[in-house]
């Protein structure tokens, strides 16, 4: 028996040794170096769910790069939409991160902390001049010098209204709500006129809504959350009153982010928010609804969504990796991509492209132009340090607040305490 326990103890010691645990703290980010050298050899590019819809486009971009740099071979990996973060995580942990990887800013941050991404502003000083400031800022992190990704494409939200439902139940789709108070008032009209069959509002408030209400989410040094303010509590109380009045479906309590869009696409609710291409994708899901949708600009500050390409700090072919990332995110290639799908280029040179600023007269075209114009004011509303666990805990506490199970203040205090705990651990 004693031998058994000592064996187990030894195993535990071996396990601890194997875990590689030790004081890591904030690791130094990627090594400083201005990268120069010939662009040749093999380089890997990883994208996120672009096959099969955009296979031809990406392959064309790769072919162009290989023609421009004879002697370069690009290996293109495309990962499915589901479980992308887990895939990147396993690649990073296993030391097999591709040379160039499509990473949104919140995915890039943990890799930056581990020193796994290259500071592209050091390696390629032009990055801060040639890309829009919002895009560059998205890959600039508190506590780390430099920029850790080339902004690739941008998007923002606009409002979408079901004009048929609005007209049928006494609302004017040409005068959609412009702020929260108007939204609640029109939601009340819709509910009364439809006998509670149709809703205008169908999502819980999120951190972005708190920002719109003037709430500061984090301390300046980014070490703690600060959104448990009276203003935030007042907003949750307004939502609670609306929920109690039956202006939102009960499903919002167990809703996910997609729930709102799903209900809109089903024709159950009359309002949703979405990117500039929402009507185009709606035409596939519900072709009869798409022509009846009217867009309007987002209420308050529009949210900014950024996608980018980051370069592995462990790449064995930095010149080719940087050249490839820059090539994929060049104004010409971004413009070609934006013509295929309603996303917007992140390069300053693309700002004058009439394709984005002139509508073709369709509602989808109007939405695209609206989204493009909104980009100038758009900013990332949620801090990049928010993890999936934090987001879920916040959503849960907000659900408790609007259902009336706990007070708004209690819900906010709990959410802040839990998020701080996760942030510090």
């Amino acid at each position, binding site marked *: 028996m004693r031998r058994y326990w000592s064996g187990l103890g030894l195993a535990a010691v071996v396990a601890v040794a194997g875990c590689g645990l030790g004081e890591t703290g904030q*690791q130094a980010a990627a090594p400083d170096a201005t990268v120069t050298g010939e662009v040749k050899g093999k380089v890997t590019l990883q994208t996120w769910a672009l096959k099969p819809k955009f296979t031809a486009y990406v392959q064309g971009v790769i072919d162009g790069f290989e023609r421009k740099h004879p002697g370069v071979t690009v290996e293109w990996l495309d990962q499915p939409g589901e479980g992308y973060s887990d895939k990147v995580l396993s690649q990073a942990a296993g030391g097999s991160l591709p040379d160039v990887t499509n990473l949104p800013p919140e995915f890039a941050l943990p890799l930056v902390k581990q020193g796994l991404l290259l500071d592209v502003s050091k390696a390629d000083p032009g990055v801060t001049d040639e890309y829009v400031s919002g895009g560059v800022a998205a890959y600039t992190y508190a506590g780390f010098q430099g920029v850790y990704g080339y902004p690739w494409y941008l998007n923002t939200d606009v409002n979408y209204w079901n004009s048929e439902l609005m007209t049928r139940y006494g609302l004017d789709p040409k005068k959609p709500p412009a702020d929260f108070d108007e939204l609640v008032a029109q939601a009340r009209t819709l509910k009364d006129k439809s006998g509670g069959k149709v809703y205008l509002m169908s999502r819980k408030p999120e951190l972005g809504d708190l920002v719109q209400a003037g709430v500061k989410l984090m301390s300046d040094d980014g070490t703690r959350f600060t959104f448990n303010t009276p203003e935030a509590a007042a907003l949750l109380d307004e939502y609670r009153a609306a929920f109690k009045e039956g202006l939102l479906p009960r499903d919002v*309590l167990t809703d996910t982010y997609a729930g709102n869009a799903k209900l809109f696409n089903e024709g159950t609710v009359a309002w949703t928010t979405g990117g500039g291409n929402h009507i185009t994708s709606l035409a596939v899901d519900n072709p009869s609804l798409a022509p009846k949708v009217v867009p309007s600009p987002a209420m308050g500050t529009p949210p900014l969504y950024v996608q980018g390409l980051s370069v592995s700090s462990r790449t064995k072919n930095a010149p080719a990796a940087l050249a490839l990332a820059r090539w994929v995110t060049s104004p010409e290639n971004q413009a070609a991509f934006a013509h295929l799908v309603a996303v917007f280029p992140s390069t300053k040179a693309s700002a004058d492209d009439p394709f984005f600023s002139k509508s073709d007269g369709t509602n989808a075209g109007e939405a695209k132009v609206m989204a493009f114009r909104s980009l100038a004011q758009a900013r990332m509303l949620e801090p990049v340090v928010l993890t*999936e*666990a934090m987001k879920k805990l916040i959503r849960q506490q907000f659900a408790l607040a609007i259902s009336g199970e*706990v007070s708004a203040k209690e819900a906010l205090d709990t959410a802040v305490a839990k998020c701080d705990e996760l942030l510090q*651990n």
Partner: protein
Amino acid sequence: MTHRRWFTPWLLVAPAVCWLLVFNIWPSINTVVLAFTNAKPLGGGHFTGLANFARALDDDQLTDALVNSIVYMLVCLPLLTMLPLLLAILVEKRLPGITFFRTAFYTPVVASAVVVALIWGWVLDDRGLVNGFAQWLGVVTEPVPFLTDRWLLLFSAISLTIWKGLGYYMIIYLSALGNVRRELHEAAAVDGAGPVRRFWSVTVPGVRNTMLLVSVLVSVSALRVFSELYVLSNGTGGPGGRDMSVVMLIQLYTRGFSGHLGYASALSLVLFVITIGPMLLLLRLDRKGS
């Protein structure tokens, strides 16, 4: 006479031993080790002693999850131990067309838990089949919040688990009932015992060991429930996350780049301990009964 080398048997068992060490023993030991650290998926972290367990004691979400898991077990255990036995007795009879019923009861077992939960989600939704029908009949004026009320959601998931598990445990009982000697039933009938008396005096003692096995399987499955609650609550864990099971809570802390592996491992150990508890209790009861 062939000369056997001393290491031949070791060579034969080596693949299995290696498999066990790499995929069973090592992850288990690693989980125990990680429970005392604040490790992250990308490495790093350091020894934090009992901090994760202290945090767990203070975690109201874990309290809710434990309550949910224990309620789940307490409801599922008697129902999934007795109902499949009664069902097995019904379909054991050799009647024309009985195979159809056996297959029908077993069909939910074959279906994926996620698919079944999705279908039940549509059925129980505020705008789903049940609420639509009930409102059409005028039984209710407002939709019954099957998926948006803490306890209704939990019991909807429990109903789904029971519905899906009936066929599985029925098959186990069917094989056990085949081992109960017919002569015992005949002798009891001659002595004047009715069907109920024969059930308690002949059938139940005859399948006692199988009942114990089923009880252990049901308890462990109930404490480790995930799919039903996850899908029915749209991944949110119900209103305010109050319908999370312990496994859902573990999943919450392991997801993404910034997963909290240390705390999740500590929760896994808590789950392991509470899963072992009912098993030991049932075995003890069995020994006492014997």
